[in-house]
């Protein structure tokens, strides 16, 4: 089934540890996105990539980095996790940057 695969589905992590959230799509979409979803704050864009080899900052990029080595994969890295990064993280993609975005089922991350 075509779509977006995120891994892991959930993770508990000690503060200060490094963590990479994986996102893979098989729709050959050019644009990909990372959001975090927090109660009362909704979905907020962390980073995005309009095409392989390019990335951009969203609304809340601090503490996160991304790379886009190829079309299908868009990993999100927390270099040194802090408790405020406890959230549900969603990866999304769209055919082009002006097309609707489609979401994966998220990674639930708890930083202790």
């Amino acid at each position, binding site marked *: 089934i075509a779509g*977006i695969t995120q891994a892991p589905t959930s993770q508990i992590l000690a503060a200060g540890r490094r963590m990479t959230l994986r996102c893979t799509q098989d729709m050959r979409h050019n*644009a990909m*996105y990372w959001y975090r979803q927090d109660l*009362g*704050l*909704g*979905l*907020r*864009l962390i980073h*995005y990539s*309009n095409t392989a080899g390019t990335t*951009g900052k*969203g*609304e809340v990029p601090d503490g996160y980095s991304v790379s886009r080595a190829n079309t299908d994969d868009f990993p999100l890295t927390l270099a040194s996790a802090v408790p405020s990064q406890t959230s549900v993280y*969603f990866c*999304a993609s*769209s055919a082009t*940057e*002006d097309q*609707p*975005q*489609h*979401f*994966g*089922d*998220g990674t639930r991350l708890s930083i202790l």
Partner: protein
Amino acid sequence: QKEVEQDPGPLSVPEGAIVSLNCTYSNSAFQYFMWYRQYSRKGPELLMYTYSSGNKEDGRFTAQVDKSSKYISLFIRDSQPSDSATYLCAMEDNNAGNMLTFGGGTRLMVKP
């Protein structure tokens, strides 16, 4: 004040009722409007996408946009228990590339 306001609910209706979900926004540059449905522990699923004032219908769902009032609505006819979910509105400023601004979501419960 948030750019996009959405009543968090919960909204509880009996099966078969007509449901009205609403968002207001302040940024007149928003040109594209979306409604997503999110089931518990799942990612947002695109329901409706529109870029003009007026109505767009898809099955039991009708999206309505009033740019002059900065107000959008999603109507669900003949609501079903399977419609129970959180509904998110999202908007895109064409001048800001592909960055979506989400409402906080309205939780809907349809009781059999």
